[in-house]
């Protein structure tokens, strides 16, 4: 057996080991290479940047834990952006597991140990402010602070349940739910997941159907995201943005070109680009998980390219391109 054949017959466990090392080592020795945001991501960022407290967005956690490494940072980044600008956010999930993903994202954002956390104010906790008839964002915060509540030093701000966020969660046959929400959100979700009436929420009073919504960002690991185009964008003209896994991103450039989506975050890179923009504009103090994860992707991509080149060198140098069959088992 020649050296080239030995090389081609390399036990795949060595490759697994190399990939394992490539995935672990960058966490201990971060590269921190700069990431240049692409036009597709800037478009989403700028769109949200131009929204105000009078607008509202939907964020769909339309993925399962399998793709959370890529999709979760996208959802977290968009939520951070919306919370920082006090844009009301309705959170939904296309699949049953997505609701838990959304909860995990919120837990990350409201984690007090983080540098960039938001203080979550439960619906019941600010009932007295609502009873005074105060429903505008600035008024609520003013009354909340006047009531003696203070913001911790490392906290970015408050998130008022029912004014800044409504966790609607999962419903089966979600494409029908999108269709139904085009008439009334409350017809599909009479309450949020905590059982709080949507009709009583100030954010619902201003945005009763998808027609009153300014953007739907779907973070997805499957073709679920297309439902937002088919039933949201095409039926009622709802602006839609995608946050999809890297392997799926290639499928959805067609929607960018046709103008059916305003932008797209593709894979971990897309999430890292959004995080870079948040960091640039001071919405976060430190880079997010996607930015850190890009170091792993740097090394893993280089390793795979190296392996492909190595495989081709062995293949041609060994003259296997002229033989019909290699001796070894592959």
């Amino acid at each position, binding site marked *: 057996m020649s050296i080239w054949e030995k090389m*081609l017959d*390399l036990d*795949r466990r060595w*490759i*697994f080991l*190399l*990939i394992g090392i490539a*995935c672990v080592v960058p966490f201990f020795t971060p*590269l921190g*290479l700069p990431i*240049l945001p*692409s036009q597709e991501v800037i478009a989403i960022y700028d769109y949200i940047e131009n929204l105000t407290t009078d607008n509202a967005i939907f964020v769909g956690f339309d993925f*399962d*834990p*399998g*793709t*959370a*490494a890529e999709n979760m940072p996208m959802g977290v980044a968009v939520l951070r952006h919306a919370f920082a600008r006090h844009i009301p956010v309705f959170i939904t999930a296309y699949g049953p*597991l997505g609701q*838990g993903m959304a*909860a*995990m994202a*919120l*837990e990350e954002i*409201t984690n007090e140990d983080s540098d960039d956390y938001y203080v*979550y104010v*439960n619906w019941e*906790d600010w009932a007295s402010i609502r009873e005074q008839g105060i429903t505008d964002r600035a008024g609520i915060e003013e009354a909340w602070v006047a009531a003696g509540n203070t913001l911790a030093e490392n906290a970015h701000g408050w998130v008022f*349940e029912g004014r800044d*966020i409504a966790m609607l969660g999962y*419903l089966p046959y979600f494409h*029908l*739910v999108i269709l*139904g929400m085009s*008439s009334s959100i409350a017809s*599909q979700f009479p309450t949020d*997941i*905590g*059982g709080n009436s949507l009709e009583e929420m100030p954010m619902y009073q201003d945005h009763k159907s998808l027609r009153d919504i300014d953007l739907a960002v779907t973070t997805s690991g499957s073709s679920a995201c297309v439902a937002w185009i088919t039933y949201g964008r095409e039926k009622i003209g709802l602006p839609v943005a995608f946050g999809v896994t890297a392997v799926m991103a*290639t499928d959805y*450039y*067609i929607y*960018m*070109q046709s103008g059916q989506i305003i932008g797209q975050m593709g894979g971990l*890179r897309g999430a890292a680009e959004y995080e870079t923009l948040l960091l640039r504009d001071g919405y976060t103090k430190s880079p997010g998980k996607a930015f850190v994860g*890009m170091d792993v*992707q*740097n090394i893993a*991509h*280089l*390793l*795979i*390219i190296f*392996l*492909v080149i190595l*495989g*081709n060198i062995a*293949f*041609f140098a060994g003259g296997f*391109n002229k033989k019909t069959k290699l001796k070894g088992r592959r």
Partner: protein
Amino acid sequence: MKRTVPLAIVMVGGILFMIQYFIPHQYSQTLFNYYTEWAPIVGAFALVLGVGSLTRLHSHKIKRKAKNWQYSYAVLIPLFGIPFFALIMPQNLGGGMMESMGGDRLTQGVFDFAYMNIQVPIQATMFSLLAFYIASAAFRAFRAKSALATVLLFSAIIVMLGQVPIGELLGKWFPKVGLWILRYPNLGAKRAIGLGVGFGVLATQLKIIFGVERNWLGGAGE
């Protein structure tokens, strides 16, 4: 009867909602609203069928001690155990589901515990394995055996390098060319495939609505 009734429902429903989409009248909207409210309720009955069928299949396997019958417990116990804890068991005994978004919301009951500590790690692990298999497959299968395979190989390398910051360090043109490949040649090919699939879906749906394609009946009435 077994064939005619389902065929008639599909034909009437299909034509009705094709037309409904283009009629903005109030009656049309009301009909549509009824549909969106009823469809999930009707669909929920499929859950009963699915759970029933799954339970029967796995309980038979256990009874007959069929091959790998032990794994059937891994299906049946969570199938009934998780809803039991989520919906029936009182909260002080580990029951209930995440209801509030404030506080320690994900670690309260068995339902959330199982999600966080079993389902999430299992799925994440399964998907993570892809990286290892992709690397191994790329090493063994990605060969420049022909002109087309060579084009594919170079495109893949450029796109891979263009997707990571280190690619830009190696050459400023990597991200630009990578994006160009994604935005133009990739887009053209995807659009062509998408249109082909779209027309195929349209043709199949028309065939189903008009009863030409009947495989979905599963041989009922034959």
